[in-house]
């Protein structure tokens, strides 16, 4: 048997990327009123979202490229569905620099070729099985660390941990390697604000994954790495560099987003105890509650695109070579699409029309998995933490961030068992 390769930690092992996150994502309490103000100015604005939010610019973008923000639902949706003009080359600068040849940076026809191979593994049918075999054990193990206590911080004791637990189990990594993996994966995304650290982390993951892939090729199991190296469509397999960048991206694309999405849903249920009670009584409301949380405060506020040609778009002339901020966070609160958009309502009839998983050919490949993870997590919490409430002795939950949203704590009480 070949041995599992070792991941090397950062030279400065004390460096914590988690502290630097606000540089990247901002610490804003509520960006939505400001987004509404901007949206009222027009569907397309010549501005850089990071700069208007007072964040430092993304240093990986070409300094002379003009920036445009798409604010209305219609403009965002149209751009996502017009990939020949609104290309994903935008991600070559930041994601490409840290993840390498990721599907996020590709356009047709290359994108479709690789995407359909990955996709095979993430279709609802297969993903459902992971719900029982991977997600449930991780969720229950975590809940058991605190259900006897009668109180908890559901972020630090649960939502921040479970999606990553799911990934380590999917990749079949030992938990201690998982911790370093998580740290390196978060550090690599800092490339947009701290280039050296980002590159170091990316290199270290880049030396680890080819070895892991080789080990699983030699000893295939039923883990995601073994599965992906064996998956083919029409005789075509995934090249190693594309696979490596996918694994590099997984912590952020799958873990970080699901942690945020689940936290947003819990925060809003705690804030609206009547809706939480309705959901506890009638679990058929859960799928729509998940969609509403993703609409109301979808964890990823913007996607970026790069214009390949000049285009007149909703009354604005956008030159080729512009950086486009597709503001999903604004589209999701557009009153032209959603009635009373600033109200959280788990029964909203068109909640699932949000753009939080993006749209068009790059629509989130993990959306079915994310829904399964959130469903299992919320059901387990409602089943196993009776009488769940916001802890009245602690500050109420506060969501933070302008690029990515999350509450840093969710202090709760419940009947211990």
């Amino acid at each position, binding site marked *: 048997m070949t041995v599992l390769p070792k991941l090397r930690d950062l030279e400065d092992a004390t460096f914590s990327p988690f502290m630097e996150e606000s540089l990247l994502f901002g610490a804003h309490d509520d960006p939505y009123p400001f987004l509404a103000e901007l949206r009222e100015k027009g569907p397309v604005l010549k501005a850089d979202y990071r700069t208007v939010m007072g964040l430092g610019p993304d240093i990986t973008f070409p300094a002379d490229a003009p920036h445009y923000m798409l604010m209305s639902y219609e403009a965002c949706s149209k751009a996502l569905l017009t990939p020949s003009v609104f290309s994903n080359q935008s991600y070559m600068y930041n994601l490409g620099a840290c993840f390498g040849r990721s599907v996020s940076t590709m356009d047709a026809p290359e994108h479709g070729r690789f995407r359909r191979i990955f996709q095979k593994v993430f*279709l*609802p*049918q297969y993903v459902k099985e992971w719900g029982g075999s991977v997600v449930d054990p991780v969720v229950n193990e975590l809940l058991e660390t605190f259900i006897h206590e009668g109180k908890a911080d559901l972020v630090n004791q649960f939502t921040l941990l479970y999606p990553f637990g799911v990934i380590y189990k999917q990749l079949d990594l030992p938990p201690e390697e998982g911790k370093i993996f998580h740290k390196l994966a978060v550090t690599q995304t800092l490339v947009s604000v701290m280039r050296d650290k980002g590159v170091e982390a990316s290199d270290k993951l880049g030396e680890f994954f080819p070895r892991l892939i080789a080990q699983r090729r030699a000893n295939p199991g039923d883990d995601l790495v073994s599965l992906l190296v064996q998956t083919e469509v029409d005789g075509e397999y995934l090249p190693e560099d594309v696979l490596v960048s996918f694994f590099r991206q997984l912590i952020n694309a799958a873990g970080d987003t699901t942690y945020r999405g689940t936290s947003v849903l819990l925060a809003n249920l705690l804030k609206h105890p009547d809706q939480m009670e309705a959901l506890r009584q009638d679990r058929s409301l859960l799928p729509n509650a998940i969609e509403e949380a993703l609409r109301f405060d979808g964890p990823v506020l913007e996607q970026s695109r790069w214009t390949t040609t000049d285009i007149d778009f909703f009354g604005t002339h956008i030159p080729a070579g512009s950086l486009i901020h597709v503001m999903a966070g604004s589209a999701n609160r557009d009153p032209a699409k959603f009635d009373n958009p600033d109200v959280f309502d788990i029964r909203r009839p068109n909640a*699932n*029309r949000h753009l939080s998983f993006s*749209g*068009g050919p790059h*629509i989130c490949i993990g*959306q079915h998995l994310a829904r399964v993870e959130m469903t299992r997590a919320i059901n387990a919490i409602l089943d196993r933490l009776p009488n769940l409430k916001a802890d009245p002795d602690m500050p109420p939950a506060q969501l933070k961030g302008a690029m990515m949203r999350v509450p840093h704590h969710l202090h709760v009480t419940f009947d211990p068992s």
Partner: protein
Amino acid sequence: MPRLTFVEFDGQTREVDARLGETVMRSARNAGVEGIIAECGGSMTCLTCHCYVTLPESGSLPEPSANEQEMLDCVLEARENSRLSCQVVVTPELDGARFDIPQWQG
């Protein structure tokens, strides 16, 4: 123009005169059929354009491609007559076809 009928899950019915050569998904979207979500814009990646097709006696429809079939194996609430409407092209033989929309897309 072939006439297509879309029936939303709540029973709401819409008749659409569809352009030849257009996909059924686009004909539905253009006519404002809400239940055909088509998040991925026809790249066959999202499964949210799923519907159940009933052809009139005289009608006919090509079989799904291997790729579409593989996707159809994964939709929620699959049935014998499930199709992804982004993969079905409007032809004269589709005149009078009825497309029922499932309760859940995806």
